[in-house]
């Protein structure tokens, strides 16, 4: 069993079940660990989930699987590798950094905090975000930002079809090209505040916001209320 030494501890996932690993992480946090290294995660699912601790840093030395770092309130999770579907799903607050690629549904329904993906994501990144910030260094897949309700998504690369489809509120910035915006997703004028936000959000990751020509996407709000005058819009939205 791992022990806490000067606030730090190491957990080895080899030959262990997910539940056992998560229990060990919680036990170490209970014993005062502030810095936990997790080796050999090898793509296991649902690691480091449901943690309500503000000042703990957990670093995975390898890829995590689906639903990693989900439902957390506070911790700082770092993944040195890929992450699977549903990364940081429903995060209330905290910070997740993935130094690799992420599957579909990255930062789904997050309410707060920050999710950073160094590489690309699959489909539906930032789906139903209710707050917080999602930063993607690479490109995002099909229907990203679908039904977004609040928060911000910054994509340095390209966005596939259906970006921001049926979004209510929130803002999406895209540094590359947008294959096609989704229903009711509209390009808006960049303001000075947007420039400041992008600079401040991206600089901690060594990304120079001024090297991109960002496009800003927000809701056109034409789907907020049903209108018989726009049957075409509703036909595609539904």
């Amino acid at each position, binding site marked *: 069993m791992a022990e806490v030494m000067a606030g730090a501890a190491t957990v080895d996932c080899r030959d262990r079940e997910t539940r056992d690993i998560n229990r060990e992480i919680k036990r170490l946090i209970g014993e005062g660990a502030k810095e936990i290294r997790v080796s050999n995660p*090898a*793509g*296991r*699912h649902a690691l480091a989930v449901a943690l309500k601790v503000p000042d703990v840093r957990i670093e995975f030395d*390898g*890829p995590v*699987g*689906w639903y990693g770092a989900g439902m957390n309130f506070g911790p700082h999770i770092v993944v040195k*590798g*890929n992450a*699977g*579907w549903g990364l940081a799903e429903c995060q209330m607050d905290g910070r997740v950094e993935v130094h*690799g*690629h992420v*599957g*579909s549904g990255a930062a789904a329904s997050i309410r707060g905090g920050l999710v950073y993906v160094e590489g*690309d994501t*699959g*489909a*539906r990144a930032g789906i139903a975000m209710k707050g917080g910030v999602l930063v993607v260094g690479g490109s995002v*897949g*099909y*229907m990203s930002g679908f039904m977004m309700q609040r928060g911000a998504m910054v994509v340095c690369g390209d966005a*596939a*079809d259906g970006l921001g489809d049926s979004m209510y509120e929130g803002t999406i910035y895209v540094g590359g090209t947008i294959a096609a915006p989704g229903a009711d997703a509209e390009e808006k004028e960049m303001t000075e505040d947007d420039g400041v936000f992008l600079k401040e959000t991206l600089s901690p990751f060594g990304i120079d916001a001024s090297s991109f020509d960002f496009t800003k996407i927000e809701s056109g709000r034409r789907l907020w209320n049903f209108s018989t005058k726009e049957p075409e819009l509703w036909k595609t939205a539904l």
Partner: protein
Amino acid sequence: MCGIVGIFYKGEGKAGPVGQVLVDMCYQLFRRGPDSAGVALYGLPLEDGFVVRVDLERPDLDAAEGEVLVAIDEVSSVKEASRRTRSLRLVVTTDADGKLADWIEERAPGARVFSIGRSMEIVKDLGAADDVDHLYDLRGFRGTHGIGHTRMATESRVDTAHSHPFWARPFPDISVVHNGHITNYHKLKRRLEMKGHRFATGNDSEVIAIYIADRLQNGESLDDALRASIEDLDGTFAYLISTAQGVGLARDQFATKPLLYAENEELVVLASEEISIRKVFPDPGLVPRELQAKEVRWWLK
């Protein structure tokens, strides 16, 4: 759900432990589909003759094997024969212009021909990949490439015949594994039946194999066939199609089912989840990528 996996060794004649790789990767995805598991293994192609894999669903296995051998002798001849539990492996001189599978099944009740090819061998059964390996010793198989599947049945019966991979019968060496549900299956099946194709099962995934084989037979490239399938297949799918030359894959327009690919100079590895890839290939230099919506890829010898 269902889990799908694949391995392809790059370069003419390059081979590796295909059986072991597929079984280990498939078993990692066990919880995606615990009903049945199977693999399509591609060995070094025979210059002369065909490999036939027959499943004997009979208690009197020796008698069933005898009936199969007698049947084959009328249209072809058997060069090698071996049997492990109910899976009969034969090397025969000819597939009788694609008629051999029907010929065997008509004359040997309970015998089902799972595959015929110069290099392809399909083995599948109920249970996890580990169980199937214990029954048929798949781990020892060396080959150039292969695909595997672990099934959670949503369509058609849970039995050995309805397990994946499916052979694109009677086309030698073409097989498919599929995660998803083809909703226009009946329409596509009818259309292909009107062209003279026949279906061995009532499973929706079989239609993908016949659909691709039909296009390849008409001279289309694998790339064209894969792209056409994205438009013609309705429903949800991530599938792997394998031929004697290599492996292709495609994902539906909504990106509903997961599929990852990772490649280096020597090999390509494919799986529904990274946990499956990492069990066999822990090298962090091999980085899996998720296939995007409507994306197709292929690797050929």
